[in-house]
């Protein structure tokens, strides 16, 4: 009896050691922040931190699905910029129109990615690179390269400002729903298991009779939809559609997924660890702000790029033992 529990625990840690690092680091950073800064654990900081990072979390979770199939989605940043403009244009009709509108626009571009990858058999890296450029161009065309102010009189503004049930902003509630929904999809449905199986071995999955095409279409459409949602948050957070935003978001999202312990070769991955990865990257910036606030040091915002890169490096070195035992991919 005692033997088996000990064995199970060891196996659990071994099986999860790729995402263990992110949790330990995240908790360590939070403890560090709470102990060092007065208002770090305050409700205002927590709420505004989550509110700002909601869009990055949503994008990272969508990206995680694509990466689990062994693919990649470089278009998410541009798609978010595009749908932020869509959301701003739709804001006079209220959130009930803007939310579905922005998500639908994201889903449509995700569908285009799926068409390129699945039907035209273009490598995901290139296909989504093309939609990245296309969506960026599209965002600039429909907005005339201007930020599009949202309608402040409609209920659209409630999204970022008003608190659901008086506790947390709507943005955070919606993000939580998306994350939990996608977790259920991955862990509890056959479609989710197919996604993982594809990353483990696409040919084998086909031979096992799994509906590979359906699952691959799903992940790209899903990632597009998540990016669409992020665009909505972007418009609400900044009070305007931002056609020029989103540059480099795809790489932050990939970094979140990688920091969360998911290998880019696919076949495995964790939604919760990806969220932790996104939080971790956001927290670096948050702590930097607090540190500057103490007035002892003054690191410019540029340092956050350097520190994020260093973080990614540390995690990669930590992971490299896991990665070297897994199968090697080309890109």
């Amino acid at each position, binding site marked *: 009896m005692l033997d088996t529990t000990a064995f199970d625990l060891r196996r659990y840690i071994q099986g999860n050691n790729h995402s263990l690092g992110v949790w330990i680091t995240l908790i360590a950073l939070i403890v560090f922040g709470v102990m060092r800064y007065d208002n770090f654990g305050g409700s205002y900081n927590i709420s505004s931190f989550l509110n700002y990072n909601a869009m990055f979390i949503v994008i990272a979770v969508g990206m995680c699905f694509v990466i689990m199939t062994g693919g990649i989605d470089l278009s998410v940043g541009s798609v978010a910029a595009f749908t932020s403009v869509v959301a701003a244009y739709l804001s006079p009709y209220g959130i009930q129109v803007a939310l579905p509108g922005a998500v639908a626009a994201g889903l449509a571009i995700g569908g285009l990615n799926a068409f390129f990858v699945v039907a035209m058999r273009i490598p995901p890296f290139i296909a989504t690179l093309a939609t990245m450029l296309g969506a960026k161009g599209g965002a600039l065309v429909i907005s005339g390269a201007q930020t599009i102010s949202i309608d402040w009189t409609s209920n659209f503004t409630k999204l970022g400002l008003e608190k659901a049930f008086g506790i947390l902003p709507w943005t955070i509630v919606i993000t939580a729903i998306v994350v939990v929904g996608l977790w259920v999809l991955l862990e509890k449905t056959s479609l989710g298991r197919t996604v993982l199986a594809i990353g483990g071995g696409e040919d084998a999955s086909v031979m096992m009779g799994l509906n590979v095409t359906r699952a691959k279409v799903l992940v790209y459409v899903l990632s597009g939809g998540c990016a669409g949602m992020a665009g909505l948050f972007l418009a609400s957070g900044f009070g305007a559609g931002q056609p020029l935003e989103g540059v480099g978001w795809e790489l932050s999202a990939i970094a979140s997924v990688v920091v969360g312990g998911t290998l880019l070769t696919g076949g495995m991955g964790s939604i919760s660890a990806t969220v932790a990865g996104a939080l971790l990257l956001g927290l670096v910036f948050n702590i930097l702000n607090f540190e500057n606030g103490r007035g002892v040091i003054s690191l410019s915002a540029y340092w956050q790029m*350097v520190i*994020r890169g260093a973080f990614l490096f540390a995690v990669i070195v930590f992971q490299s033992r896991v990665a070297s035992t897994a199968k090697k991919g080309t890109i």
Partner: protein
Amino acid sequence: MTMDNNTVQNAPKSSGPKFDWSVVSRHGGVFALIAILLFNVLITPNFLHPQTLFVNISQVATIAIVAVGMTLVIATGGIDLSVGAIMALSGALAPLIFTSPFAEANPELGLALSIIVPIIVALACGVFNGALVSLLNVQPIVATLIFFISGRGIALVLTNGNLQTFTNPAFSYLGTGKILGFPFQGYLVVIIAICVWWVMSYTVFGRQLLAVGGNERAAELSGVPVKRVKIGAYVICAGLSGLAGLIVVAINSASDAARIGNLMELDAIAAAVVGGTLLQGGKAPIFGAILGAVIIQLVKYTLLANGVADEVALIAKAGIIVLAVYVQQARKE
């Protein structure tokens, strides 16, 4: 672009579909170039003016130089996302060096250092990328992501995010100098392309690089120093990116770390792919990459010269990339 599209669609209809596909896909870039040139001669005002040629050469040079390096990396089956960030880093360093008091006291030495130091830093970045990829077995896209994020950050920290403007005719020669009327960097591109082509075709390193990309395991078993060859590819790519960063700064007589080489990784990858580089590795068409860079530059120019907005040009670029890879894909199957 439209003409190329027609060629592709009409190809199977004519005689033997298999034969025509291979002709189109093997020389797709050339067809596209001819189509764009014809279109421009007919439509674009003043296209045959020498000034147009000079403008395009001076703009295409940086894309072409980086694309050559990218081609080598892709030939090993990898990818380098950090090229734009490395351009920013070297572009930020150069003015810092030649505007320093030491360099102003010793202008010649200062000029030499302002070219040599940034390129050495770029090469060091390449060693870092290559070591991560080959020694730690990190996937190339992740390994180069580190510098993609932090390289530009370092450049911005160094310059405090400020635009550095300068007047230094000797350094600006890199970007504005002319030999026999043609821009200096145009010659640079030709020399680099010929050197790299020679290395790839006639040296052991070149053949080993292609072997690694073709089948890494087989190359390793037959005694190719796979790790060293891969590091070499990343180092060359980073060094060429560093050089391209210097040229951009020289053209503008100003250095803005936030802008130098922005989205260059995409242009370079697109140029390499349009030029016929297979993303799976094993092929390194150097002159193809130059051709790809020229096509991308010409498409950009054509659209801008005809009053099409910059943003629509992006969409066109996207279309070209998809088309090029689709044609490539069709050849493989």
